[in-house]
């Protein structure tokens, strides 16, 4: 039986879960980031305090250039913060400019660009994380197959990235991030390149996977509707320097169906957030 359907079974359990469980998965305390170049100093982020619970889904919105990617990269262990601390399950991710690699190993990251390896087929790209940690060939093949189906790329397992469209590549990148069943999933505008219908389907899939695996997700998006639909909370960042302007709790029951978007309460939240973004000018 494919693991896929066990995930579906677990989904019901997830549905009864409180929207914001108690134990902190991620703690950001006073995070700031400065970029120094020869001529300028850019204060990209300043004084970010945020606690994210285990299994929580946090959407991150804000104008272009407000520091969303920067924040995500620090969480992913790719960029050290200039100030403040990041705790993953109480353990410090950064020791100065060095990253604690044992913390990184349970992480799934989807970047703004797909960043696939053109020399590997779709299946090999998807299962690369498994290969790196030493899983067997048969296991990798099966998991890649399962994930290709999940992201709607069944039949493309043996294709090469150059034969895929931009949106398909991004879906391969998502499958790659999911391959190790990460407990912490960091996604930077993963669905930006997808058409509206595929995007909707991917939103539902992501919600299902997050519930089924009880993964904690930090999800960056430009799309306010998407942020509200997916998030347990929506964090709104303002630019120069990037600060948290507001954190909005979204309390619709899970799993949410697409119909939730037509509810008046949903529309009100989206409108509110849009106004707040507009005010930045």
């Amino acid at each position, binding site marked *: 039986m494919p693991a896929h359907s066990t995930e579906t079974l677990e989904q019901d359990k997830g549905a009864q879960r409180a929207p914001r469980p108690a134990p902190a998965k991620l703690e950001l305390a006073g995070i700031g980031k400065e970029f120094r170049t020869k001529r300028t100093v850019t204060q990209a982020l300043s004084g970010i305090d945020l606690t994210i619970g285990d299994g929580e889904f946090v959407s991150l919105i804000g104008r272009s250039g407000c520091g969303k990617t920067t924040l995500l*990269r620090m969480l*992913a*262990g*790719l960029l050290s913060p200039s100030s403040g601390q990041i705790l993953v399950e109480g353990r410090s991710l950064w020791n100065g400019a060095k990253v604690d*690699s044992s913390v*990184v*190993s349970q*992480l799934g*990251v989807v*970047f703004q*660009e797909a*960043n696939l*390896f*053109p*020399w*590997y087929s779709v299946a090999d790209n998807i299962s*690369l*994380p498994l*290969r*790196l940690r030493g899983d067997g060939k048969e296991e990798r093949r099966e998991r890649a197959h399962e994930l290709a189906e999940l992201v709607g790329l069944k039949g493309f397992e043996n294709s*090469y990235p*150059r034969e895929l469209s931009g949106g398909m590549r991004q879906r391969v990148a998502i499958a790659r991030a999911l391959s190790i069943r990460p407990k912490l999933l960091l996604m930077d505008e993963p669905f930006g390149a997808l058409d509206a219908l595929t995007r909707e389907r991917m939103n539902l899939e992501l919600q299902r996977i997050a519930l089924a695996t009880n993964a904690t997700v930090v999800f960056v998006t430009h799309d306010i509707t998407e942020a509200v639909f997916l998030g347990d909370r929506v964090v709104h960042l303002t630019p120069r320097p990037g600060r948290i302007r507001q954190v909005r709790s979204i309390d619709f029951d899970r799993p949410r169906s697409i119909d939730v978007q037509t509810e008046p309460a949903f529309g009100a939240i989206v409108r509110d957030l849009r106004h707040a973004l507009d005010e930045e000018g």
Partner: protein
Amino acid sequence: MNRERSKRLLPWISTPLILIAFFVAWDLFVRINDVSELVLPPPLTVFESLVEVVTEASTWEHALVTATETIGGFLIALVSGVAVGVVLGKVAWLENSLRPLIVASQVVPKVALIPLFVIWFGFGMTSKVIMSAMLAFFPIMLNVQLGVRSVEAGQREVMRSLNASRWQTFLHLELKSTMPYVFAGLEVGIVFAIIGTIVGEYLGGSEGLGYLVVRTLNELDAPALFAVIILLSVLGLLLYFVVHGLKRFFIPWHESVYGQQDVNR
């Protein structure tokens, strides 16, 4: 469907046609202008001479010498070029401090050094192997250096976010993304290696197809000269296609390979 097929067949038809046209034009030119055989022999005479040259056993010994020198020099250039290219590509300060020297040694007409090599290493194969290695070294080394640097930052971040070890990053990312550059260098390098060998043979020694060129010239045997040049071209083509075949085998995913397939289709 039909159009695709005719597109693929086109080079197989057009190439012989162009060659035939070329030989006909050559023949007509010689006949009409009544060119002396010493200057430009007619194609048929060259062909007869070619048959003669090919059937002579010593020709093959000469060809073997040239091939050995070229391949030897090329392999030396391959190993040293990749090694030096990787080091210089990775260690920025070393590259910076050596750059003036590298540029200078590229500008120096290396062919001018052959007489020196003859003095140092004699008239045998060694001086030619060194010459061909030296010429092939630079394009390979420079391409590898470029390749090592060109690993995409985003792909590096993927490996880092996956907690990959240095060795894994090398194996799955750096090696793979440098390969196209290595092969671009090798394709230029093999051509340079042949040039190095032949020029080396022109200037010193008594072996190799390059030497045969000089000898037939001294004997004022123009048809034989042409025949040897044809043999040299065939040798060059063969070596080039070996390298090209290796490239198609090792990096079928690269656009320089699959792009070509699209064109041929």
